[in-house]
């Protein structure tokens, strides 16, 4: 089964208390989000965007071995 690396930032890291972890057996970003919300219910009302291999995605995206998925709360640089 393919391993997906998840990395988190900002308030998302605080909510789920994990900076980086691996999930297995997940094939796309919609399934991943359903899985993560089950594991970490506080994510349900978190504003975030999702990047797959450093590109922000706008719709359900296929994941494969070694995909890197980043959970990005609203940016606040500057």
């Amino acid at each position, binding site marked *: 089964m393919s391993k997906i690396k998840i*990395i988190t*930032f*900002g*308030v998302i890291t*605080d909510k789920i208390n994990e900076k980086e972890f691996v999930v297995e057996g997940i094939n796309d970003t919609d399934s991943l989000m359903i899985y993560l919300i089950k594991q970490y219910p506080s994510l349900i009302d978190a504003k975030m965007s999702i*990047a797959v291999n*450093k590109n922000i995605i706008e719709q359900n995206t296929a994941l494969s071995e070694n995909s890197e998925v*980043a959970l*990005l*709360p*609203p*940016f*606040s*640089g*500057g």
Partner: protein
Amino acid sequence: MQNKIKNIFIEGPISPSKIADAISKHQQQTEIGAHSIFLGQVRADSKDGEQVKAIEYTAYNDMALTTASKIREELFAKYELTCMHIYHSLGYVSAGEISLFVFTSSKHRKAAIDACEELVERLKKEIPIWGKEIVSETKSLWKENQ
């Protein structure tokens, strides 16, 4: 040269002398007639009666650098620029200190001014950086850009 991925991050605050150095370095380029600079300074905003002491910045570094590089390329294509520099702090920056330094140069003023403004807007929207406002040892708040 515009296509190379450049580091934009500086650990801690950006000092005024770094800004002076960046300006000095452009004095050999005598085709430049205009520089536009934007600086972001950490505000001591009030949060329920307490003041923000500092902002602690973190970033998704790889994505931040590739995004900054893409924005650079697009702005070089759009405006007649001679130079463009972007610096952002990581880590702890106290209120009153500078965390963002953006610097564009061109022959005539309009290109530098317009590119600088667009660069600041795009950086704030597109670059994955987060600021945590430190109010006290136990209290902090994640900032959100307007």
